[in-house]
């Protein structure tokens, strides 16, 4: 089933490309089908329950490299969000874009491509699968954020998002490798708890990776910038899907780091900073989309804090928040997008009075906003209650820090939500709706998804039992002890409720005071500028680095390679002992060796080409002698014949070049000599080191017996070549044939220009 759904996405991408040529709307409709089907499937699975569905495509069996999918309760919950919100947003985008919008193929296909990568990430059962799809979401989101690629600011924002998330992906990869090495399995469901220094390093790396994806301070700078994307993209990627990937990751691998203090505290630090700084950012900005983006940073920080805290109740609250946040934040984005399309602005200081002219949008925004604030009778309320109760269950320093984060973040949330809704819908200079440029499109297409999402908050509250059926199994899967909790529609007047009331009152006061103060400066985006500066610096400096590394001189390249090889061989020196050395196997060997080296030196230093060729021949004949002494008559015979042909080839081919080699300049020559000497020493040392600790005896007796019995021949070497290793010999023969054809082809090409020169 998983393959079928995934395949449907891939087919859908092709369909979206084709349909998108007609219009943006057609492309989006084609793209929406697969996510819609997936969402329905996930919903029925969640309601019906049943065994966990999994699928695996093994690639390298022995190395545990496989694409493995597993749709457990957590994955199903995320599938519902990713595919459900995805399908709704694609429907919404049909109304958002005008019917003559450009790039229909690209947008629809990339949206679906992102959706498919996200599904792969959510379903991933091995860390390798997870990483591949993780990076694919980075790439597709880069394309989506940069949809309006003709705009330089958009390109900059897209690049920033890619640089940060892709760098985070690499950090994550390092962390995952450490994790897999320490737990002994790349399987996400089989991660055993680990501890120690490596575990702490792995924890830090994984958390940094997750924090870049989930826009945690200080890696959050890409998220506000990514608001340059079309609003459907923001509603999808930056509320329900991509930013949740980091949260999902820490939720899933969290159990393995349960004993690692660094995991808990670094995670809480990320979360705490994001909750507060995100909330403050949301209060400072005027662009409605930016307010939502900063609000997302803050809300994601809440989830990060809860999952890092790791207590069962905190994990339960985290899952509940994850679910409700996707619904209300997507709805708010959709409303802001509609306001943007119909009024032409998103600046809340210019907007106002839309409650009357856009009543439906107002109701949707009110419901979603109230859910975000945490008012009953909405799903957001139950999630926030769960979070506060989770804080009450904690103890000591954790309770204090997480408590400040949750309460402070909630107060800020109330304040910026009030400011946002007041700014758009409250009294003020009534904005004229639908000015020039807005042709009355299929506006129900924009309204329906937003209504659905915001009503989901109400319905979810009404049938809280149904929501529990989704949330509780997921939480249980993440932490076995979290299964005892459930969302409660009306808890009664308890401590948590009192705190909740106080939060709302304080938040409202802060919000009203902030509106009255009327701070409308556009804040500086320090982090974003710094990030761009770093990236620009790298890009502008890299040509000089490339020019330095890749300067185009073959001899220098080869010398560098030789030096590196020498350094690599130096590592073997630790294992060096000369006890097994003898002077020679046979006195003749020593004489031949000396002759060979002298002949080689002659080949190098004799000035004339013919002399060098003859010296090479002498080396070959000397080596032939060495083979004979060693007891390798086959090698000797072959070498003798080969050498003859090579020398003839040299004489034929180079006979009419200048007689002498060109002179060599002094300093480069000495560098060459040094590299060469070091290379020779390194190879010798490596061989001695290799012989120091032989791991076995030569397999001569076995090979001899095998050759006679299996190969039916007495010459063991030749039987190995034509029988035991015949496939190698086949390859070798093909190489020779290729060389022959290549030589003929080269000869043919060069005869043509000559003919031409002679004609002219």
């Amino acid at each position: 089933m998983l393959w079928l759904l995934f395949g449907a996405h891939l087919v859908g991408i092709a369909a979206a490309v084709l349909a998108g040529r007609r219009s943006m709307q057609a492309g989006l409709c084609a793209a929406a089908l697969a996510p819609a089907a997936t969402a329905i499937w996930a919903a029925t699975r969640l309601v019906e329950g049943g065994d966990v569905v999994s699928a695996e495509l093994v690639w390298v069996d022995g190395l545990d490299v496989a694409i493995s999918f597993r749709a457990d309760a957590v994955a199903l919950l995320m599938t519902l969000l990713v595919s459900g919100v995805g399908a709704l947003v694609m429907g919404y985008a049909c109304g958002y874009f005008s019917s003559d919008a450009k790039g229909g193929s690209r947008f629809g296909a990339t949206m679906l491509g992102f959706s498919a990568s996200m599904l792969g990430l959510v379903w991933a059962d091995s860390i390798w699968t997870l990483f591949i799809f993780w990076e694919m979401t980075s790439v597709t989101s880069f394309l989506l954020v940069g949809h309006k690629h003709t705009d330089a600011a958009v390109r900059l924002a897209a690049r920033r998002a890619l640089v940060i998330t892709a760098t985070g992906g690499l950090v994550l990869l390092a962390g995952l490798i450490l994790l897999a090495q320490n737990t002994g399995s790349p399987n996400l469901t089989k991660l055993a708890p680990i501890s120690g220094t490596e575990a702490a390093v792995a924890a830090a790396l994984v958390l940094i990776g997750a924090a870049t994806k989930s826009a945690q301070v200080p890696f959050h700078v890409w998220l506000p910038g990514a608001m340059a994307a079309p609003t459907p993209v923001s509603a999808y990627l930056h509320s329900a899907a991509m930013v949740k990937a980091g949260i999902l990751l820490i939720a899933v691998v969290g159990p393995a780091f349960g004993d690692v203090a660094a995991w808990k505290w670094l995670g809480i630090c990320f979360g705490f900073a994001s909750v507060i700084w995100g909330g403050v950012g949301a209060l400072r900005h005027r662009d409605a989309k930016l307010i939502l983006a900063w609000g997302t940073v803050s809300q994601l920080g809440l989830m990060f804090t809860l999952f890092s805290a790791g207590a069962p109740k905190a994990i339960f609250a985290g899952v509940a928040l994850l679910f409700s946040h996707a619904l209300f934040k997507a709805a708010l984005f959709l409303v802001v997008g509609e306001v943007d399309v119909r009024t032409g602005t998103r600046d809340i200081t210019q907007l106002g009075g839309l409650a009357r002219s856009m009543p439906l949008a107002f109701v949707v925004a009110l419901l979603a906003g109230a859910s975000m604030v945490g008012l009953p009778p909405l799903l957001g309320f139950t999630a926030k209650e769960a979070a506060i109760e989770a804080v009450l269950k904690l103890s000591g320093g954790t309770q204090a820090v997480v408590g400040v984060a949750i309460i402070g973040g909630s107060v800020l949330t109330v304040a910026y939500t009030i400011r946002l809704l007041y700014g758009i819908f409250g009294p003020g200079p009534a904005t004229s709706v639908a000015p020039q440029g807005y042709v009355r499109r299929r506006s129900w297409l924009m309204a329906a998804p937003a209504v659905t999402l915001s009503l989901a908050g109400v319905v979810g509250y009404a049938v809280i039992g149904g929501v529990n059926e989704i949330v509780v199994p997921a939480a249980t899967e993440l932490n076995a002890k979290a299964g005892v909790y459930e969302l409660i529609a009306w808890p009664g007047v308890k401590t948590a409720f009192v705190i909740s009331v106080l939060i709302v009152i304080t938040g409202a006061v802060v919000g009203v005071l902030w509106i009255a103060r009327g701070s409308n400066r556009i804040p500086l985006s320090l982090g974003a500028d710094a990030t761009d500066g770093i990236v620009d610096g790298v890009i502008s400096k890299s040509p000089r680095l490339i020019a330095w590394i890749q300067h185009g001189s073959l001899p220098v390249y080869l010398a560098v390679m030789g030096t590196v090889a020498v350094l690599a061989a130096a590592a073997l020196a630790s294992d060096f002992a000369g006890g097994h050395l003898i002077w020679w196997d046979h006195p003749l060997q020593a004489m031949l060796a000396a002759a060979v080296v002298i002949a080689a030196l002659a080949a190098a230093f004799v000035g004339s080409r013919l002399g060098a060729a003859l010296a090479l021949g002498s080396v070959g004949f000397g080596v032939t002698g060495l083979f004979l002494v060693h007891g390798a008559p086959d090698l000797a015979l072959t070498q003798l014949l080969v050498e003859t042909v090579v020398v003839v080839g040299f004489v034929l081919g180079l006979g009419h070049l200048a007689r002498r080699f060109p002179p060599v300049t002094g300093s480069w020559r000495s560098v060459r000599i040094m590299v060469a000497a070091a290379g020779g020493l390194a190879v010798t040392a490596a061989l001695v080191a290799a012989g120091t600790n032989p791991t076995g005896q030569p397999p001569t007796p076995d090979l001899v017996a095998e050759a006679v019995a299996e190969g039916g021949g007495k010459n063991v070497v030749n039987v190995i070549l034509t029988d035991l290793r015949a496939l190698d010999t086949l390859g070798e023969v093909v190489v020779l044939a290729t060389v022959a054809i290549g030589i003929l082809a080269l000869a043919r090409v060069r005869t043509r220009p000559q003919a031409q020169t002679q004609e002219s």
Partner: protein
Amino acid sequence: MKPNQAPAIQLGIRVASPLAIVVGVYLLFAGHNFPGGGFAAGLVFGAVAILRTIAGLQRPRGTTALIACGVLMVTVVSFLPILWGDPLLDQRVVTFDLPLLGTIKTGTALVFDIGVSIIVVGLVAAIINGLSASQPTQGAGQPTQGAPQ
């Protein structure tokens, strides 16, 4: 390379050629039990071609056909066993009696070796033709005007 027209050398090479070919054939058959094999045999045949070229007797022809023929033989022998379900490159041993030579034990490996030697002869022929082909048309030692400006 300027062909050497000295009659004595030509005569010598004429006489030596068949002998060398016999040596090559011996190496081809001996390979399984004594030093030799297809590659060495091919090089001996190739050396004959080189000698005859240098002596101005004849230049090798049909290089491409040789290579194609050799590759075909080697490939067929390698892949044929698959047709009757044996692994790739599996070899069959055949024993038969011949007058004069006695019992000959040979197999598909021999065909493989012959193919190898044919390819090697082709390669040597390509070296002779490819590395020296165009030189007689140019003045000896004079660098070619390769790239017209």
